[in-house]
């Protein structure tokens, strides 16, 4: 990735850096939902961003299109049980938000959303799967590989390879 496109990508996601304090509608995701309903997709998009948020170093899961990646996997899957577990998992997030704060997850304040996720992370179940797919989606994305990790490989190197000479 060139420096130019890196700057473009930071600029494009700068808005995401200042908005999360308000319980506003989430930034529209990059890819249309294919398995999840629009409401489920918006919830998933926010959950992934809470797991890997935008920070001063690099954009987060929302900018990297992680929800779209997960939804694509769900849509293509031939395993209805796995699809059902995701639907049930997202419903459980909503139920927990209502139980703790009396409102829908996306209508809760940021610290309330984090409280819901913290509760989920402490328990066995959906959080592990959610985190696994989020992590995989993010660190295999352009943003994850080139901006967050600043990965330098997968290029034709000239001369000696990187590293310290042991000879």
């Amino acid at each position: 990735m060139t420096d130019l496109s890196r700057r473009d990508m930071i600029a494009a996601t700068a808005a995401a850096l200042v908005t999360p304090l308000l319980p506003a509608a989430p930034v529209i995701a990059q890819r249309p939902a294919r398995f999840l309903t629009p409401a489920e997709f918006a919830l998933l998009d926010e959950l992934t961003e809470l797991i890997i948020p935008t920070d001063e170093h690099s954009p987060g899961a929302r900018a990297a299109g992680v929800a779209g990646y997960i939804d694509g996997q769900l849509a293509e899957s031939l395993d209805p049980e796995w699809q059902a577990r995701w639907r049930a998992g997202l419903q459980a997030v909503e139920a927990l938000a209502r139980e703790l704060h009396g409102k829908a997850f996306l209508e809760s304040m940021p610290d309330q959303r984090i409280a819901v996720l913290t509760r989920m992370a402490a328990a066995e179940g959906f959080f592990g799967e959610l985190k696994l797919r989020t992590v995989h989606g993010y660190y295999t994305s352009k943003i994850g590989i080139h901006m967050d990790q600043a990965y330098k490989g997968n290029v034709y190197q000239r001369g000696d390879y990187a590293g310290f000479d042991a000879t």
Partner: protein
Amino acid sequence: MMIRVAPPPLRQDVDLSKTYDAVIVGSGAAGGMAAHVLTAHGMQVLLLEAGKRLPIEQELRSMEWPYDHPRRGDAPPGSHAISFNEYTVRRPPYAKASAFRHVYSYVGGWGGSDYVKNILVDEKDHPYTGTRYAWVRARALGGKTNIWGRLALRLSDYDFKAKAHDGYGEDWPISYADLAPYYDKVDLYLGISGVKESLPHLPDSLFQRPTKLNVAEVQLRERMARMGRVVTPYRAGVTTDGLKHNKYRSKCFGRGACSRRAGGCDIHAAFDSPTGLIYPAMDTGRLTLRTNATAYEVLVDRNSGRARGVAFLDSETRKAYEANGKVVILAASTLESARLLLLSRPRQHPNGIGNSSGHVGHNFCEHVMGPGVTGLVKELVGKPHTLDDGRPGGFYVPRFRNLKDRQPGFIRGYGFEGSSGHSMFPAHTMETPGFGAQFKKTVRDYAGAFISMGGFGEVLPRYESHVDLDPAEQDRWGIPVLRFHYQFGDNERKMAEDMATTAREMFEAAGIEVIGVDREILTEGWSIHELGTARMGRDPKTSVLNQFQQSHDVRNLFVVDGSSHVSASCQNPTWTIMALAWRSCDYLAEELRNGSL
């Protein structure tokens, strides 16, 4: 950027009416080498391969970014790779009742399963039975060399004469001096990268430019030197300087694709049999290649009992054919060659051709894996990200047990393969607790600070460790399948315990914080280094082949793959397989010229 030439054209309608000088079964490291050496001697050779010739560059796509693939490298839905847990709790045939459309061995679960889905066999088509075994097979031109791990090591007289050292098993009918000139030939013809260490138990090769150790590995190397142990850059069967005599292969450009996935190199800097051996052999005009040819029997002359050819099915049409040769050479892999010998039961050879000793399928051995260590190099936490994976491998720790010392619990030894530093996908993401900004920063700060290594230990050959034909189960082509009678014994378990102990001890001595020690042994077969089902030896009563991999019983039958190995050593076998095949084929060509075959 690279000068590479398209492979020679391929024809399926090969001439089966003539008698070839040699018919070879299998196109991996052993079969490719036989084709190279015999055509160089001027012989007319027919090479049979059960799989297809794949457009391998399109399969491997070594530099495709995950985000440019619709499923980030995953195989299509409905594909499944067998997990360690499945191998452990279930018994073969693992894919029999599977609801998945395609089932692959565990290698299909490594990063980027879409890139190996046509190279690995579908376990549904290729069942086997008996004891637990993680059998990894590739049916395609080049076989497993299309995705091999590239660690290219020599054996030594610590292996060939191991019985003289500890009294166990049998010595090989050759010594290192017999094979050394052929290791040299393999080095020069195919290219190998490494650093000379002058170790008697791990002889040096004729190395091209080595790859380098990164900062954590240098630290380990320096501290281990004080303990009298060696940490050397990965000895890779990869040409780092290029090969002027081979127009199909590029030198390595350190793209790092080989470590990201199951292996495979679409510029062929890493050795693979098609570009390294078979295409140059085809260019002599003396090699005929027949792919989609599933061999099922060695044909025998009714009167003389000599081998006269090979019967095969077209893998797609299932039509039966016969190929005729003055010499038959099996190179179908340790287990498949044994299966072929056992499947061939003419009147003269009721227990299987070449099996008067009763040793075909027996003395089966390999490497035991599982124990290892992961550590954290604290000084590297939070450092800028560096390029660490742009090389064919990390480091290798040669064997140090039972050389001068005598371990109380076990005989023979083990080595470690390891690596450290940054890679495309950060390490230990799921082991990093929590979520949010702190999680993200921790993953970023720690990504390059991990180092790990895992052991490969010599499994002792035992007569009772064997495979035979299952009387009931058949593969998709109606051919009886192998049944395993094989499991690790006490020596392997004691050795594995020691591996975990010394792995920890080495990291601690190097000032590396140990964050995990694996003690669990992986399923039998995991090393993909199966060996010894048709071993060489001087005594026809206790061995199948002589020192030139020639059947004791049938003079014009040779088995040139890993099945000939007398013991497993702890060193990876591919380079030895090729050196032995070269030596045997030199002998074979001379014998054929003399009229002795």
